[in-house]
């Protein structure tokens, strides 16, 4: 059995997971994509465990552990998503903009259609240090 096949499959699966994380708007779909990425890693572990003929079966044991951790992580992920849903009535990743710079233009809470909304040129910044007022 050529090890290339499982490894290539795992690589493709991993990339699909990355695409899912970056492209999907709904947080749960993002969590699913994370699951895909984790499974790709498991496939890789199994393939190399078999190839290396490891007496300790490190690969397979680690896969078990990864599966357990994935489950725990998903549990917590969903708890957070539910909490967000309860507060913001939406689970769209786009609308969670609390990390934004406090500019007057992009209102952090409001749904912001564009990814990089055409923020107007930074006017006089509110309350920043003396430097701002100087020039």
């Amino acid at each position, binding site marked *: 059995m050529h090890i290339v096949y499982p490894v290539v499959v795992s690589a493709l699966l991993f990339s699909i997971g*990355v695409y899912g994380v970056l492209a999907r708007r709904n947080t749960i779909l993002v969590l699913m994509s994370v699951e895909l990425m984790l499974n790709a890693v498991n496939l890789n572990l199994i393939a190399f465990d078999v190839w290396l003929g490891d007496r300790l079966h490190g690969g397979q044991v680690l896969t078990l552990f990864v599966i357990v951790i994935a*489950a725990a992580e998903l549990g*917590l992920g969903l*708890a957070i998503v539910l909490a967000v849903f309860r507060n913001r009535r939406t689970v769209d990743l786009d609308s969670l903009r609390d990390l934004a710079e406090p500019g007057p233009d992009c209102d952090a809470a409001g749904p912001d259609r564009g990814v990089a909304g055409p923020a107007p040129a930074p006017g006089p910044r509110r309350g920043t240090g003396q430097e701002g007022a100087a020039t």
Partner: protein
Amino acid sequence: MSEAPSYLSPTGHEIVFLLLGVVVVGTGLLVVTTRQVVHAALWLVVCLGALAGCYLVLTAEFVAWVQVLIYVGAVVVLLLFGIMLTRAPIGRSPDLDSRNRPVAAVVALATAAVLVTVVVDGFRHAYVDLSPGKGTAEEVGVAVFRYWVLPFEALSVLLLAALVGAIVISRTDIRGR
């Protein structure tokens, strides 16, 4: 290392594995591109199942069954519950992809290209003769409880912490200090 047989004469294992691989990748793509949230979860089930098959081909039966049991059984169900609780729209909803799609596509393709080239270049000649019995529950069980006891116990503590965390987050009547 014995001279690896050429790719042109695939053994039975490899053919089965390739078929399962195609299924895994196909359903994976469907999970991330489908327009319906529930369909995504269902395609995920198929994908994980096919993956369990791959493990079987790779003589790791115990892991395959665990995969089927936990992933397909518990994790996907959990996801479905999540979808239900967040009242995700049933049926086709147009805008499941954020405007970040083109960037994501580019990044994903780039990752795929890089990984595949590196991996193929690295393991072109790797070949293993699969012998059943390597991945039986007894083998893995011995390995876990002889060599990996400490990580095993640590994992249980982690699960407990995750459990408590999930409860604290989801219950509304517990106020932070």
